[in-house]
C-alpha cells in the first residue's frame, strides 16, 4: 500500500495529513468521533535534527487538545548519519521526540505506531518504538541493523548469518522477527479497511503499561528479558 492508500483506508471520512520533506503531520477523522493527530516519517527519509524537532513540536502542541489518539506512521531510513546532526546533539533531539510521545501516551493521548515501510536503529527508537501499541503492515521491512553491517562487525558471512537467522528471531531484520521479540503488537490485514482495524484497536486499547517483554516470552523471541526485569524489580523493591 502507498502512503496515500494507507491514509485513505485509515480515514474514509477525511484527513489533512501533509507530507513535507518526508515529515508527516496533520489529523484524520475517526469514525468513532474526534480527530487523531497524525505524525510520522515517510519516503524512507532519514530522521535528523531538523525532522525530529518538527515532529516533537506537533506532539507537544497537540497535548492540550483533548484525548484523541496519536498515530505515528513510519517508513524511514535510520537516524541521519552526518557530522552536522551529531555536532548539534542528535541524541537529544531523538530522545526529546520519544519523550514527548511517551509522555503524551501516559497523559491520555494513546500513541499508536504504524510501521508500513522501512525503519532502523535510532529512527525506530524515536518513533515507532516510542508508542504504546505498534502495528505492522505486511509491507513493513524494519531492520534494527542490516545484515551487511552485521557481517562486517561479527566477521561472519551473510550466508552464515542468514542460516543462523533461521533458528532465532533475535538479530535478523524483518517484521516477523521484530514481532516475535514483542516489539510489534499486531499485524493488520491490508485486504480489510484499516479504519475497521483501527476502530477495533481503539475499542480495546490496552492500558499504558509496557508489556513488550511479556509478549516476547509468549512468542518465543525473547526468552529471558521479562523474567530478569521482574526479578531485579522485586529484589529492588525488597531492598528498601
Amino acid at each position: 500500500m502507498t502512503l496515500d492508500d494507507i491514509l485513505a483506508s485509515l480515514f474514509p471520512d477525511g484527513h489533512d495529513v501533509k507530507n513535507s520533506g518526508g515529515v508527516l503531520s496533520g489529523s484524520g477523522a475517526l469514525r468513532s468521533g474526534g480527530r487523531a493527530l497524525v505524525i510520522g516519517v515517510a519516503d524512507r527519509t532519514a530522521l535528523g535534527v531538523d525532522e525530529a524537532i518538527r515532529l516533537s513540536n506537533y506532539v507537544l502542541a497537540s497535548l492540550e487538545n483533548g484525548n484523541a489518539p496519536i498515530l505515528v506512521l513510519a517508513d524511514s531510513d535510520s537516524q541521519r548519519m552526518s557530522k552536522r546532526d551529531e555536532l548539534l546533539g542528535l541524541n537529544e533531539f531523538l530522545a526529546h521526540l520519544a519523550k514527548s510521545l511517551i509522555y503524551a501516551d501516559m497523559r491520555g493521548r494513546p500513541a499508536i505506531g504504524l510501521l508500513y515501510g522501512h525503519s532502523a536503529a535510532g529512527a525506530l527508537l524515536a518513533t515507532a518504538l516510542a508508542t504504546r501499541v505498534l502495528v505492522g503492515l505486511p509491507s513493513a521491512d524494519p531492520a534494527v541493523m542490516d545484515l551487511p553491517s552485521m557481517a562486517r562487525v561479527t566477521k561472519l558471512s551473510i550466508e552464515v548469518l542468514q542460516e543462523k537467522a533461521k533458528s532465532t528471531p533475535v538479530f535478523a531484520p524483518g517484521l516477523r522477527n521484530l514481532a516475535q521479540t514483542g516489539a510489534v503488537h499486531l499485524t493488520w490485514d491490508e485486504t480489510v479497511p484499516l479504519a475497521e482495524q483501527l476502530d477495533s484497536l481503539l475499542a480495546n486499547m490496552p492500558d499504558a503499561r509496557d508489556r513488550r517483554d511479556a509478549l516476547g516470552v509468549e512468542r518465543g523471541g525473547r526468552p529471558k528479558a521479562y523474567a530478569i526485569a521482574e526479578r531485579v524489580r522485586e529484589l529492588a523493591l525488597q531492598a528498601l
Partner: protein
Amino acid sequence: MSAPHTQTTKSSAELDRTASWYEASARTRVRLLLDPGSVVEFIGPEKREVSPHLKLFDLPEQFDDGIVVGRGRLDGSPVFVAAQEGRFMGGAFGEVHGAKLTGLLRAARDIGSVPVLILFDTGGVRLQEANAGELAIAEIMRAVIEARTAGVKVIGLIGGRAGCYGGGGLIAGCCSALAVSEQGRISVSGPEVIETNRGVEEFDSRDRALVWRTMGGKHRRLLGGAEVFVDDTIQDFRDAALELLSSIRAFGIDTLRAEQSRLEDRLQRFGACPDAVDIWTAEGIPDAVSIPALPADQFIALADKVRRSSRDAR
C-alpha cells in the same frame, strides 16, 4: 609468581576516589562512587544469568552480561545504580543486560523517591542480539520516562571507554541530567558508522581530534547536551552526582516545552556551523581553538562563565 602473603596493598574497599573513572571497571566505579560497603548487587555474577544468544555465535559470555545493577547509599541516602562494562562487547545492550536496567528503573518508578544513577559505557545495541537489544533500549527509555513522571531523578554519568553511543545516547537524552568527562563521548552514530555510510569526506573516523570535538564531553557541556563537566576521577563524578541530585526539578509538560525551545534555539543559532569550533566561537568564546587542550579546571571555569546549563529543560 609472587608469594600470596607478601602483598600489603590496601583493602579494595579503601581504594581512594582519585582513581580514574575511565580506567576503572564497572564494578569498581560502583563500589568507589557510593558510600563504602553500601553496595548490594541484584542478580550478581554468581547467578550466572548470561546471554542466551551469544553461544549461537560461539562467543564467550560474561556472568553479569556486562552490567552491574544494585542499590547503595550516596552520602547516606539510598540510590539505585546501574553500571555498564564497556570492555565486554563494547558495553552493548543485549537482552539480559538491558532487562536488568529496565527492572531497576521500574522498581524506582514503583517507589517514586529513590534516584537512579546510570553509569553509561556503551556502543549501543549488541549486534548479535540486535532486535532484543533495540527493544531493551525502547523499554528502558519508556521506564526512564515513567520513573521521572513518578518523581524519580535519573542521573547519567558518562566517562567510560566505550563512550555513550547509539541507543545509549537516546537513553542518556531521556535522563534528568548528565555529568560527562572529556573522554565521555555522547552521540548516536559513531565515527566509524558515519564514515562507512557517508564516506571519509563526511567524517574521518581516524581524525581523533575531530571525534573529540564533535562528540566529546567538552562540546556536549558547551552545547548544553550535558549539565556538568567533570575531571576524570571517581570523586569528581561523585560530587557531580550529588550536585545534580540537589538541583533537578520535577519532570512534566513544562520540562518538555522548555526542551523544545532549548533545542529549537540551538538549531537556529548553530544550525549552519560546520564545526564545533564555530559553535564555540558563536557562543562567545574568544580563543575557541584552544578549548580541546584546556585542563579540566580551567575548562569548567570557562564553561560556567559562558553558559549556565539549564536544569529544567531535559
